[in-house]
């Protein structure tokens, strides 16, 4: 197993900051989408549609850096960036960061940090969705929704996480593979 060295630590932090900066533009989109969906009682849907973008730092860091803990650390640092850039959710962002990061980490744990392909990304998207959804059941009171509505939220969340954490991550790493810049990505 690879261990953490100074270069990897700086790399995962810079990556997280890049993601944070790129996603900072999403903030207003989230607010507008929430406001548009709120009158119909569909505000959680805004969260589900955009969740994939927020959790992307996890699978991307995990796939590129390939050290146990990379996905969790990447996502946690993303949350730290958001917190100090002026996000309002403060400490609960940190908890969400760990939960989301651990969710995608589970995907890599289940494949033993050995296989890095489509299967890993699909499993990672699935575990991310399940873990973060369980957290939402408690945190945001999702447990009180009707079952049909809950199933809809879950499906939308999985699609979002899969598109950004799975498909987009794969497309990005394909580009990296073609450029031959990362030794272990072919």
């Amino acid at each position: 197993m690879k261990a953490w060295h100074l270069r990897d630590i700086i790399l995962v932090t810079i990556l997280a900051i890049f993601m944070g900066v790129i996603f900072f533009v999403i903030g207003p989109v989230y607010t507008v989408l929430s406001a548009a969906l709120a009158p119909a009682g569909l505000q959680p849907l805004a969260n589900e549609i955009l969740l994939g973008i927020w959790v992307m730092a996890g699978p991307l860091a995990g796939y590129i850096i390939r050290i146990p803990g990379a996905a969790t650390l990447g996502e946690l640092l993303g949350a730290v960036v958001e917190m100090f850039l002026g996000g309002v959710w403060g400490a609960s962002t940190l908890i969400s960061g760990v939960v989301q990061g651990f969710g995608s980490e589970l995907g890599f744990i289940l494949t033993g940090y050995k296989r890095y392909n489509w299967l890993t990304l699909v499993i990672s998207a699935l575990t991310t969705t399940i873990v973060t959804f369980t957290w939402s059941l408690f945190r945001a009171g999702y447990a009180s929704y009707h079952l049909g509505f809950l199933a809809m939220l879950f499906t939308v969340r999985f699609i979002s996480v899969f598109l950004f954490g799975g498909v987009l991550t794969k497309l990005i790493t394909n580009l990296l593979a073609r450029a031959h810049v990362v030794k272990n990505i072919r």
Partner: protein
Amino acid sequence: MNPSLKLAWVVLLALELSFTQVWTVNLVLIVISLILMLACHVPLKRLLWLTGVPLFFASALVWSLTLQGSASHHFLIVIFTRMFVYVYLGGLFTQTTDPLILTRSLEQNAHLPSKFAYGFLAAFNLMPKIQAEVASIKAAALMRGQVLHVWSPQLYFKAILTAMHWSDQLSLAMTSHGFVEGAPRTQAEVIPLRRRDWWLTAGSLIIIQVGLFTGLP
């Protein structure tokens, strides 16, 4: 108060309140963090922002829980106040904590390995450069008639290349300036961890436990 203990306190509370349903405790915490923020001279504009945002999201959440779910009134009040607790506790922490002091405290008091503490610090100091880099990646693409969106792989590809380049250079620079992983270090600024900090943390946590588990509504 010691930054590491403060961080642990805020995270522990946020975690515990996510699983408990006592709105009176939420309310008391909201009032206390508001008073503490006022005492620490948090700007009024920031306070209004910290109130407006949760007001909108908590209302929207309660509204959708009413329409799409079967939550009791008690639970709706809990959820509504909980959103404010998250934001106010978080605000109290970020507005009264300096990231540099926090990192030093995590290294000295929480025994985070120094390679992590200094690695984070080195990277976080690049924040303005990273913001400029994202803008210049987008501008460079625009010159060739490409518009890069949040879903464009090229945007991330270029960002990752830059990240790898910079992390190579930074770690080399740190090593050449004498940074050795795992070597014992002396501190220029010692962050105190007083007895008072422990008493304050433990005492307030115990009082909150009493509030949470003695049957308050």
